[in-house]
């Protein structure tokens, strides 16, 4: 039994960041990288399934990123993942989620896992697309925004709940193997002590190239993406209004604004 967990190395902005000279991204010096918060949950979900099953389950994490992502992969190995795969090639630079998904699908074809987990979205750009696009390339059943999962490794189906707007949960059953995107709060991610991260350095990280995955360079990078970044900029301060006054006044003002934005006369 094998579970494949796709993780992303996200970037947060440091204080006083600057936009790059070409205006299409923030200067690399101001990017603080770390493992995507959602991936803590998807990895934990995989570990729970691994630890609950009687039969041995291999948990493999995969990340499409350059060498500096090895730090996050080590953290995943420290948490109990059995193997880590990193995919990188110069040509991958500039890929959007769809191009990355193409690579993940190639890894899945190579690894033949029983399930593929990904986070709902990443904490930096939040495209919320990579997992589902991977499913499309694999033509696997898929579901997103899971807050609850009942699945035994190798099972033919899984029952899950996805969280809808308003907090309502929608319970569904899905055929497996499938791609599931995992939402925050589905479990409590375990802590990886620094000692265990250090010890995980003994576990290997397999690095794959485009060649290894049989993916043409034209299918990744900008050419393989479905969108392109034209410009990145810091927006002017938004229209934030401080609503003052008594509770009644506040309520009235709020209602007025909401009706204004909603546009309907209820």
């Amino acid at each position, binding site marked *: 039994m094998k579970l494949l967990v796709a993780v992303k190395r996200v*970037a*947060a*902005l440091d204080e006083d960041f600057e*936009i790059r000279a070409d205006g299409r991204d*923030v200067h690399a010096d101001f990017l603080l990288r770390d493992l995507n918060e959602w991936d803590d949950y998807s990895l934990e979900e995989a570990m729970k399934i691994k630890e609950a099953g009687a039969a041995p389950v291999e948990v493999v994490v995969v990340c499409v990123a350059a060498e500096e992502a090895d730090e996050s992969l080590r953290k995943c190995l420290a948490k109990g993942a059995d193997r880590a795969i990193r995919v990188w090639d110069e040509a991958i630079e500039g890929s959007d989620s769809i191009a990355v*998904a193409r690579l993940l699908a190639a890894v899945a074809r190579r690894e033949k896992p029983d399930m593929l987990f990904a986070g709902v*979205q990443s*904490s*930096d*750009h*939040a495209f*919320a697309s*990579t*997992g*589902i*696009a991977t499913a*499309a*390339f694999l033509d696997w*059943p*898929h*579901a*997103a*925004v899971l807050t609850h999962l009942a699945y035994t490794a190798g099972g033919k189906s899984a*029952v899950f709940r*996805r969280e*809808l*707007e*308003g*907090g*309502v*949960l*929608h*319970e*569904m*059953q*899905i*055929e497996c193997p499938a791609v599931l*995107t995992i939402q925050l709060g589905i479990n409590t991610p375990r802590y990886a002590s620094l000692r265990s991260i250090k010890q995980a350095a003994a576990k290997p990280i397999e690095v794959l190239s485009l060649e290894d995955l049989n993916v043409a360079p034209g299918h990744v990078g900008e050419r393989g993406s*479905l*969108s*392109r*970044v*034209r410009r*990145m*900029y*810091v*927006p002017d301060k938004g229209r934030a209004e401080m609503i003052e006054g008594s*509770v*009644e006044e506040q*309520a*009235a003002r709020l*209602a007025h604004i*909401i*009706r204004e*934005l*909603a*546009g*309907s*006369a*209820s």
Partner: protein
Amino acid sequence: MSGILVIAEHRRDEVRPVTLELVGAAQSARRVPEERVAVAVLGAEPERSVPSVSVAGVDEVLTVKLAAGEFDPDAYEATVRALIEARKPSLVLLPHSIDSFGYAAAVAAKSNHGFATDVFRFGYQDGALVATRGGYGQKVSIEMDFPAREVVILTLRAGVFKPPGARASPSVTSFAAPPARARLVSRSFIEASAADDVDMTDGIQGDSSEHPRCRIAKTIGHPRMR
């Protein structure tokens, strides 16, 4: 490629209000006034939803009858792809919603269309579609474009675009859903435990007979409402 296709969002036989925001957004996307805006309504009894989307700015309502009443990503994906194939719109608008999380990227990936999510502003610059979304935890804005893509799919952020005010009578056409094997089955809905919370992510919904001011007052504990 021309025409704008709006995919209506359903929840339990009700068209969600965000659909009308998409219609409002579609208006500003018309490159020429005659460009047609169509709204596709998917569901077990799509005709019942036609009145909710018969608003100004909608030229045509496409009803698609699906086997399952509730959301099924495979059926939605196949239908939207078929709709795009048949109607060849230049722009397809979906809400950036939980349902869209489940299938929008699959449509784009399989059909190789232009794709961007959580867009809060878009327009044409020198004939090219430019969509703006957030980046790095909403600390920056990113302008995206879609070179050489004839069809572009955008998921739009809720609560940004104004829905049309007036009502209208668009033409209604039925569209045959393509066959799609159901790999998912809907089982049940489980209500949230805190039923009194107003979910600000979605605008005011729920009991539409209740005055919005009353609902707000309730949440901030206006003594009059206790």
